[in-house]
């Protein structure tokens, strides 16, 4: 099987058979003998001080084994974010495991471990907490006022972080402009809605070593952050990599409260402790941050952008967590980088409120920026009567340009314009009608959104890990095992990484298996996040496979009496180049390496092969990728807006992505189609709502938090993949995942405008907002 027969093929997922028959490998299924179940008591108040807490009745309940409150746990402030070192300058360490100060409704104040979930739940009812309520603030701009309640003493005016960037001369740029456009764009809080709840089972042995099973996107980050919060060395924790997890999407990139609490309860009781969150608890554990963007852009009559100035206000809730990092990525990749313009200025504010904490979510600040930037471009084009594609072309980067993130890198592969052109042709862009001209009460419109600059991992970001490693080990049956810390979130990382190893090693695609890994046995790996697995982990597994192959061919050369450079391996056979009939199965070479030195033959004991042939054929790697190539994306959507009900239906999507090279087309389409589901939810319906007085979550289950079902999804989602062959990537690949959710809201908002001639600048675009904008409500 040649490289071309593996790379670019829709190889079936190795985990699919198990998953269609029930799926055993999820952390939620882990059960250990003698395991206890723990539950958390959560504060009903959004801002309060605990002045008394009585757990004595709970402790008396038969079956209760331990109760924890703030006095029982380490009080070292930490940031839960996985992908930065614990003491990184860019993080804000403002959380503790359990505190006597409550800053959001639902913050845990106590925990109980018992012999059953029912007893633990009953015991929570027996804990008596005396709260002193404190004044609250839920709006980040109100929180920035001096008179607002202060959440953290170290952050005056509730500003946890205040980064800014400036390039060129913005005043001169605006002076040069023929037109200046100003707008305010607001996004809402949404949840990643991974289907498997956050769950952990932690077992502390008698020597104080913790073994951790957890539904998370990063085994090494979990180990590091847990160790820091518990104030113990990392080497006392082993995190098991789950065979798979039930989705992540960025929502499993930080320790929550449950992991340190389960660890302490296990140490206290000497039993394994399991905590599984309810869906309500999941809803208040992680979210994409709402960001309000004030955006000002200067343009010339011909559409050239001369200056851009922006201010972004991010509601990070009770703790900074990911808000400390999201604001930077949002500012740079969401607002500053996407278009060429010499004069730019941006300032961001990560602001504390008494809302729930935020988290990671595909796009990590970029969807909020993309919605603002692309919506305003649509306004500019409408006002100046410019074609939105030509406007973008005029301000776009070109292949060969320096990368805006790091000018030392070049955009060696860049299919931004090709993505727009191919998508435009497919959707019939040239037939697009003028805004609001669609007849009748059900009006159709077509919109465009793009994202020209994004990441393939985190190379180049200060304080963010990016190196990764792998072990490739060959078996005597001619197959190979791949061990890597990269967690398969569901998007097919295992499949794609095994394809890369098979292609490099010259095996059949199904001859490589992703095997067991934990933090003790594989090299460090950055998280499965930031669209990095195919590119960064792909490079690492390819390097490990190349090393194994080198050893394989050294032995083969001796056995076959050839020069290693004259050998090639393909389809599980080692062959002499140019003599396809001179072959030897890979399995036979591995057997030579693994066989005893002396074998008993019919002529008596004899050496099987020289000692230098002996030893497992293995390749290892631990490396950082050379750069951070950008994907590029253009999305065209057609919508129908019912002007009587305000309902928006997305009818058709044409989503074009420059992803370098498609490793597995079926898996890549799956990313695009799933991304559209999340994007349509973000654009039209999803909204994590909280009572503005009590801070209580109003959308705490899927009955109230609406996300698209199969009925709401468009019947046509068409993927176009632009293969630009990224020179630094594995077999030419770069990234895809996050681009699939970054652009939909902007494209749908533009399509709604094209349909009804009214623009909505605050997500989600609900029927109420449509009718109000049309003046009929």
């Amino acid at each position, binding site marked *: 099987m040649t490289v071309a027969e593996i790379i670019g093929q*829709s190889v*079936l*997922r190795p985990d*699919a*058979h*198990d*998953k*269609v*028959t*029930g*799926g*055993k490998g*999820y952390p939620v*299924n882990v059960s250990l003998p003698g395991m206890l179940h723990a539950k958390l008591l959560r504060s009903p108040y959004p801002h309060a001080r605990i002045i008394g807490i009585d757990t004595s*009745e709970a402790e008396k*309940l*038969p079956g209760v084994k331990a109760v924890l409150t703030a006095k029982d746990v380490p009080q070292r402030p930490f940031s839960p974010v996985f992908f930065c070192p614990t003491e990184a300058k860019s993080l804000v360490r403002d959380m503790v495991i359990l505190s006597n100060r409550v800053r959001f409704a639902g913050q845990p104040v106590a925990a109980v471990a018992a012999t059953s979930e*029912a007893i633990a739940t*009953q015991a929570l*009812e*027996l804990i*008596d907490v005396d709260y002193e309520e404190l004044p609250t603030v839920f709006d980040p701009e109100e929180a920035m006022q001096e008179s607002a309640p202060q959440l953290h003493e170290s952050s005056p005016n509730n500003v946890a972080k205040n980064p800014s960037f400036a390039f060129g001369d913005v005043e001169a740029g605006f002076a040069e402009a023929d037109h200046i456009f100003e707008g305010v764009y607001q996004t809402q809080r949404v949840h*990643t*809605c*991974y*289907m*498997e*709840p956050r769950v952990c089972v932690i077992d502390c042995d008698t020597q104080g070593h913790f073994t951790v099973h957890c539904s998370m996107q990063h085994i090494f980050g979990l180990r590091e952050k847990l160790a820091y919060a518990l104030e113990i060395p990392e080497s006392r924790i082993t995190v098991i990599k789950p065979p*798979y*997890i*039930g*989705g992540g*999407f960025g929502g499993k990139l930080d320790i929550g409260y449950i992991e340190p609490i389960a660890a302490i309860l296990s140490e206290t009781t000497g039993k394994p402790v399991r905590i599984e969150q*309810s*869906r309500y608890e999941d809803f208040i554990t992680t979210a994409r941050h709402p960001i309000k963007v004030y955006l000002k852009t200067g343009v010339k009559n011909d559409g050239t952008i001369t200056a851009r100035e922006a201010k972004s206000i991010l509601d990070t809730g009770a703790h900074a967590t990911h808000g400390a990092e999201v604001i930077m990525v949002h500012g740079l990749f969401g607002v500053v980088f996407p278009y060429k313009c010499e004069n730019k200025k941006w300032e961001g504010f990560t602001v504390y409120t008494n809302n729930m904490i935020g988290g990671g979510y595909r796009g990590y600040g970029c969807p909020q920026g993309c919605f603002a930037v692309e919506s305003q471009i649509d306004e500019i084009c409408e006002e100046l009567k410019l074609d939105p594609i030509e406007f973008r072309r005029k301000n776009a980067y070109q292949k060969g340009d320096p990368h805006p993130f790091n000018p030392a890198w070049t955009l060696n592969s860049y299919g931004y314009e090709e993505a727009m052109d191919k998508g435009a042709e497919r959707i019939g862009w040239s037939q697009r009608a003028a805004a609001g001209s669609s007849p009748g009460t059900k009006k159709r419109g077509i919109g465009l959104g793009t994202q020209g600059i994004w990441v393939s991992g985190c190379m180049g970001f200060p304080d963010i890990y990016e190196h990764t490693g792998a072990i490739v080990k060959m078996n005597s049956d001619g197959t190979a095992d791949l061990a890597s810390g990269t967690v398969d*979130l*569901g*998007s*097919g990382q295992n499949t794609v990484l095994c394809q890369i190893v098979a292609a490099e090693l010259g095996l059949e695609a199904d001859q490589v298996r992703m095997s067991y890994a934990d933090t003790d046995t594989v090299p460090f790996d950055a998280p499965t996040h930031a669209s990095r697995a195919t590119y960064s982990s792909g490079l690492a597994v390819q390097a490990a496979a190349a090393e194994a192959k080198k050893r394989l061919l050294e032995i083969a050369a001796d056995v076959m009496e050839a020069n290693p450079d004259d050998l090639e391996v393909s389809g599980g056979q080692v062959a002499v180049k140019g003599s396809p009939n001179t072959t030897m199965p890979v399995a036979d070479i591995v057997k030579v390496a693994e066989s005893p030195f002396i074998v008993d033959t019919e002529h008596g004991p004899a050496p099987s092969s020289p000692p230098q042939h002996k030893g497992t054929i293995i390749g290892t790697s631990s490396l950082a990728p050379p750069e951070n190539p950008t994907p590029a994306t253009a999305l065209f959507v057609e919508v129908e807006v019912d002007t009587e009900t305000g309902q928006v239906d997305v009818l058709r999507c044409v989503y074009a992505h420059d992803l370098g090279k498609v490793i597995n087309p*079926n*898996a890549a*389409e*799956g990313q*695009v*189609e*799933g*991304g*559209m*589901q*999340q994007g349509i939810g973000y654009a039209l319906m999803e909204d994590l709502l909280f009572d503005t007085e009590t801070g209580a979550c109003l959308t705490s*289950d*899927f*009955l109230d938090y609406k*996300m698209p*079902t*199969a*009925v709401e*999804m468009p*019947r046509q*989602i068409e993927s176009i993949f632009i293969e630009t062959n990224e020179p630094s990537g594995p077999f030419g690949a770069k990234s895809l995942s996050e681009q699939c959710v970054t652009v939909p809201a902007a494209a749908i908002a533009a399509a709604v405008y094209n349909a009804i001639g009214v623009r909505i600048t605050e997500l989600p675009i609900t029927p109420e907002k449509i009718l109000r904008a049309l003046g009929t409500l």
Partner: protein
Amino acid sequence: MSKEHYTKRCKDLTEGDKRMKQLVTLNINGEEHQLAISPDATLLKVLRDELGLLGTKRGCDTSACGCCTVHLDGKAVYACVVYAMSVQGSEVTTIEGIGSNGNLDPLQDAFIQAGAVQCGFCTSGIIMAAKQLLDDEPNPDEEQIRHGIAGNLCRCTGYAKIVDAIKLAANN
């Protein structure tokens, strides 16, 4: 909470579990199981915690996500809102109970072939919902398929390849 209320609640809770477990016989995947279960135990809880049938998943526990979809006498139900006590005398089928003679059900095979599985946490429930759909209507059109799985949420796939898989299974 007032002191009086608090004391009463402590008493209520610590007097012990008045809901004695009861012995029931449940027919799951064609096998009879005798179990002692609490009257408030859901079918989902009994399947997962008592019988080790982990294919049925808990995604929400509030009858909204569909991850726990099983068949009760051939009809798809959410196991998280069915009391286990109430299914005595009925036939319960879970994802582990479909297919025959060691072969996959055509729907399971179609999900593999179409690439309809990503994280897979919704997969069991969606296959069970689709199975009822195909039992009722062997040749559904796209709208019938989409409405047939509208009670099941998926966050990975956008449902596109799931719809493809159900079409594929219907055609085979």
